[in-house]
């Protein structure tokens, strides 16, 4: 409720929701419609960001809020839900269109969809659409993802299943497509001839924040890389779609994900690094190690940090490493994509001994900043006017969302919910994409399951384990500090 209701309220505020738009809430807690409305009002007021709370608008919005209590395992709950939906259709003129948003435990997804089908809610006799939105994780591994898909697709067509990955809804991730395919100057360089390697970083400064019990089952590789970061990587590396259409874009993303080289078991240790943070002092605060967090097994083998070297086996990217890392308790919260170009083939300037190792000798770097300070920077070399002679220094050309566009950026949930209501699944994950990304990480999960790691192997507040640096050093690269 921290994200969903505020996003829907914001859409109402911007008059983007159709008249008669209604929300039906469900949980096991007994509550009247009025109590539900009051609870939602408190939630929206608390979590709405960058928007005023308009009491008059809320009155109107709240008239479309309804509540049906019941246990998701109980068929009676679905019968009551159907009755409520039918009533809303009659009284508010929704035309029978329903979007089921499953903000439940992932283990309930398949069962809930089956019950929706059994209650006759998966289709509408009068021509209205029925769609279902599910949140990640889409399975725990390839087999469970397949099983989930099999059960859901027995009830609903793939076109009506919306697997939400809020990273894809972020403006800056969408802008990667605009940047690549709306401009012609970068695309000729976007390949193995000019790009040395790509680094994708998603760092969080916080720890598990009370989600220790959940997190120790998931881990960073499952929680971030398998879904969000591989989707981001696919967006950076995919081919241009023939046209901008949901399936065309997703076909290209899926094709890219399928091109990721599957690691052999013996390659995993040199291509993937598992880390877990230990206690440390950051600033004037003592920070717990992961194993000391409440609800976490003191011997947990969970990865709070994961770094993987992926290769994409296609003509464009053959041989170019894609380094993807994510971690908790890193020095700061930042998500970005760094595209490092090859150095100039011949160094005409700064030819003194050791100049190539200078911090100023860095080759071109394109940074796509997802969060915070959303924007794009391009670093290139320029002549330093000080001191005379042909001395070069890196300079940066920056585009910053905040200063370039005066308008507010919609949240990922606003974008994605509106898309789902409009039937646009471009920014949603398709089953074949889910399967391809599970396939890419599965050998790592298997190997990590077999091995016992000597954790913790990085201090809270650092940039991760030493082995991660070594993974890049083996190819003559190093992690940048984002």
């Amino acid at each position: 409720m921290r994200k969903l209701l505020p996003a829907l309220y914001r859409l109402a505020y911007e008059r983007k929701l159709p008249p008669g738009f209604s929300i039906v809430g469900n949980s096991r807690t007994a509550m009247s419609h009025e109590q539900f409305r009051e609870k939602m009002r408190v939630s929206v007021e608390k979590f709405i960001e960058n928007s005023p709370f308009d009491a008059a608008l809320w009155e109107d919005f709240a008239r479309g809020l309804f509540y049906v209590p019941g246990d998701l395992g109980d068929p009676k709950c679905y019968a009551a839900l159907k009755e409520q939906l039918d009533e809303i259709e009659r009284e508010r003129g929704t035309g029978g269109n329903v979007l089921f948003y499953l903000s439940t435990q992932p283990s309930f997804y398949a069962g809930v969809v089956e019950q929706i089908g059994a209650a006759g809610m998966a289709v509408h006799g009068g021509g209205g659409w029925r769609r279902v939105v599910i949140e990640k994780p889409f399975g725990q591994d390839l087999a469970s993802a397949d099983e989930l898909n099999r059960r859901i697709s027995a009830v609903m067509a793939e076109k009506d299943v919306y697997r939400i990955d809020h990273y894809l809804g972020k403006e800056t991730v969408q802008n990667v497509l605009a940047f690549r395919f709306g401009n012609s100057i970068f695309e000729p360089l976007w390949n193995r001839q000019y790009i040395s390697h790509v680094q994708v970083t998603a760092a969080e400064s916080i720890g598990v924040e009370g989600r220790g019990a959940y997190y120790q089952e998931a881990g960073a590789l499952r929680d971030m890389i398998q879904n969000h970061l591989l989707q981001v990587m696919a967006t950076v590396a995919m081919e241009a779609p023939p046209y901008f259409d949901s399936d065309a874009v997703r076909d290209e993303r899926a094709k890219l994900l399928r091109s990721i080289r599957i690691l052999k078991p013996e390659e995993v240790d040199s291509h993937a690094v598992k880390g877990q943070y230990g206690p440390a002092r950051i600033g004037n605060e003592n920070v717990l190690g992961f194993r000391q967090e409440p609800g976490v097994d003191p011997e947990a083998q969970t990865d709070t940090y994961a770094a993987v070297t992926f290769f994409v086996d296609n003509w464009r990217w053959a041989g170019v490493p894609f380094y993807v890392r994510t971690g908790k308790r890193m020095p700061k919260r930042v998500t970005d994509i760094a595209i490092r170009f090859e150095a100039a083939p011949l160094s005409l300037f700064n030819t003194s001994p050791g100049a190539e190792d200078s911090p100023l000798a860095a080759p071109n770097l394109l940074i796509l900043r997802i969060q915070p300070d959303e924007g794009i920077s391009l670093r290139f070399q320029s002549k330093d006017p000080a001191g005379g002679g042909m001395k070069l220094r890196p300079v940066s050309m920056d585009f910053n969302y905040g200063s370039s566009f005066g308008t507010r950026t919609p949240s990922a949930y606003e974008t994605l919910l509106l898309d789902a209501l409009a039937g646009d699944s471009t920014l949603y994950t398709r089953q074949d994409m889910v399967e391809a990304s599970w396939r890419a990480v599965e050998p790592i999960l298997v190997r990590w399951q077999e091995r016992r790691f000597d954790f913790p192997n990085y201090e809270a507040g650092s940039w991760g384990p030493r082995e991660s640096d070594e993974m890049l050093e083996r190819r003559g690269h190093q992690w940048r500090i984002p």
Partner: protein
Amino acid sequence: MEDPVSVTAIRPEELLKALSGLWTELGKEEVEGSDRSAGVLRAVTMTFILGVEEGEEEGAGETLAQLMHEHPSRAIVIKLRKNGSEVVEGRAYAQCWMPFGRRQQICCEQIELSAGAKNLEDVASVLRGLIAPDLPVVFWCRSARLFEQKAYGLIAGMADKVILDTRGLGDPQAGVRYVAQQLKLGRLYGDLTWTRLTRWRETIAHVFERIDCKEFLGSMERVVVKYTQTPEPMAVVYLKGWLRTVMGAGVKIESERCESEGSWQIREVRFESRGRDVVIDRVEKGIVESHIDSFRTRSVFEILDEARLVREELAILERDPIFARTIEVISKS
């Protein structure tokens, strides 16, 4: 200088948020005579970490302000509080200036972290999250006490280049040995004690560019560096080391203490051969006189303030082979 935004818990996130808020406010400031904002130009070409003693921050701040014009940076000032202090604080502010004839201010962001020696490691842990991405990191350790702390290594480890001033250290010789070790490890180090010698080295080089002096180089037997203070200043050790790299092993290079009215450390450099001497004599604070046979010439000996010295070091963000060779010679002798 803009009003600082202080944070109680020194988390990088909080400080970066404070900076971000500061930029938003700066961007809204109206131009005089207009109700519209001209915005500000946020300039950053490196992360510049300055380690300074409490009480010396004002002078250091002025130096920093001068440096920012040529090297706009995210400046992080680590203020080492007096012994016993357990206060750890952080604040963010911006330093702005209006270039002549322009309507848009240029602003550099600054973060001040202050702690006593006991809590300096806390500051180092915060620093990691404050470094501006993809730009060089330079650490100017202006405080001799900070150099002696364990946290010094942590801070220096984050920098692409470290600038010290060994003459201010408790044991300058040990400082130079440390710099020599770091250079061997491939780290970039600069020493302002060496930088101050640039004018001496330039003057000597100019003298020997004269045709008749070039011939004299071949017959040189001894070089004497005369200095005024006890013990022998580090600058003299550096100058002798540099002369050794230039003259080779066949020339004696010595130093002598002499009495002098001036407060400068090196008074004279005398190049001797059989029957002929070349002398470079510092006659006044800003003047040197070169004696070549009967020929006498005076030249300006520019006195460099701290900002100029650091600026020179900032211009060399790569390995300085002459400095490296000199240090190697010194550490062997």
